[in-house]
């Protein structure tokens, strides 16, 4: 991790969550709830491509990934986050997604629909876990 990334993380002291979700309504609502809970949000991104582009400029403290996006499963983003040792959770409405992303079995999976409060809480736990 570069010095610059460290800077991004610490900006204004609020933890930074990357949000990857292609259902706009859900994404915007979750963004609002995360902001209310004191998080800074990177995104929401509706495609893996745009999320990966952003990852070229910064590193979040944690991430919420929808399993399947408009441009396919979130594999590349999840791999990049794993490489940088960023804890993240995957949430999905489809059982098939688990088989599709079998290599991420050890990651926290949450099934849709889920109250935003639960996602916020899990993010908090992920952040504590990595301290």
């Amino acid at each position, binding site marked *: 991790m570069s010095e610059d990334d460290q800077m991004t993380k610490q900006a204004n002291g609020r933890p930074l969550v990357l949000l990857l979700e292609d*259902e706009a309504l859900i994404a915007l609502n979750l963004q609002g709830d995360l902001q209310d809970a004191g998080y800074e949000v990177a995104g929401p991104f509706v495609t893996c491509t745009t999320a990966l582009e952003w990852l070229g400029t910064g590193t979040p403290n944690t991430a919420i990934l929808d399993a399947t996006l408009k441009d396919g499963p979130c594999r590349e983003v999840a791999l990049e986050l794993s490489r940088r040792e960023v804890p993240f959770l995957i949430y999905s409405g489809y059982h098939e997604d688990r088989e599709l992303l079998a290599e991420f079995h050890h990651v926290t999976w949450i099934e849709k629909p889920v109250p935003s409060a639960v996602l916020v809480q899990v993010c908090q736990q992920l952040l504590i876990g990595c301290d």
Partner: protein
Amino acid sequence: MLNDKLLPAWTESDRLAALRSYRVLDTPAEPAFDGLVQLAARACRAPIALISLIDERRQWFKAEVGLGVRETPLDRSICLSAMLRPGVTIVPDLTQDPCFARNPLVTGEPYLRFYAGAVLRTPDGIPLGALCVLDRVPRDLSEDQTFTLETLAQQVMSHLELRRAIAERDEALEVSHRIEQRQALLVRELHHRVKNTLATVQALVGATGRSTGSFDEFYRSFSNRITSLAKTHNLLTEDYWQIAPLREIALNELKPFAESRQPRFILLGPSVELAADLAVPVGMALHELTTNAVRYGALSVPAGYVEVRWNMNDAEGGRKLHLEWREFGGPSVNEPQHQGFGSTLLQRVLPMQCNAEVEVQYAREGLRFRMDAPLVEQRLVPAY
């Protein structure tokens, strides 16, 4: 009475249809049929035996011994005549029979002299051809041999029946397999859609909660949004292709104003059907626009009206839907003080969800909304 018996109960097209139904023409040799002609040749002590099927312009042999060809033109067919007679036809010397004396297979190679054929008849009594034995010398058939030939002809028919039953069963299985596949696709899609809808409803609770001041207001807005969502889903589910006509989506919202004496809305656009990915957000957008128009805009006063226009444009990478909402005759419009759910939906959800370009103009004479979104052309279910 006698004449009635001579007249066949079938036409040539019936006969050809029956023959086709066995799906046997031009199929490879099969041991079961080969065995039957070998048995016929041996039992009748004849060098040649054939299972001959009379097609439109040829006789085709499902099995043969001693002739070395799989088909001949119909003008050389002796079975064609034999098939039209009842039982077993025996011609001891073909050169002596005026019907066959000039047949090229009699006058030239292989110089056929003797013919005996048993009709291959369907259970409905339609003749398909004959099981026949042939010899190069004039001769006759014993009673036992005649009986054997007739019995073997019945065996040929039994095998043909069995083949047909199997072919029909395979086709039925294929059809039911395709139906099953479509059903599985639909169940999966429905499962996705239910989960998605629940997640959307959950987001709607949050978004409505953020933008309403009282519980009553929350309850009213929220219920109306759910009702609108349900109507769009109705349109999608009713359709075989799981798509919804844009006109119907708009009517779901504006129909209450159709009863008025003065026209309160105009829908102008070609017939266009939207897949769920576009139908649901567009339906929600039209709901928010209508609700806003009823509360503050053109539909809040008797003289106001709404014009909804749309068309399709061919753009790079596919077709695009252009949709415009314009209000006329309402109270003068001011830019809203804070961003409510309606404007979030129009200005943020549509661009994110549908890749749409949108523009909202709070023009003094009436609200204007415009969107351009790429059409989702992918078909969810296969045709069958």
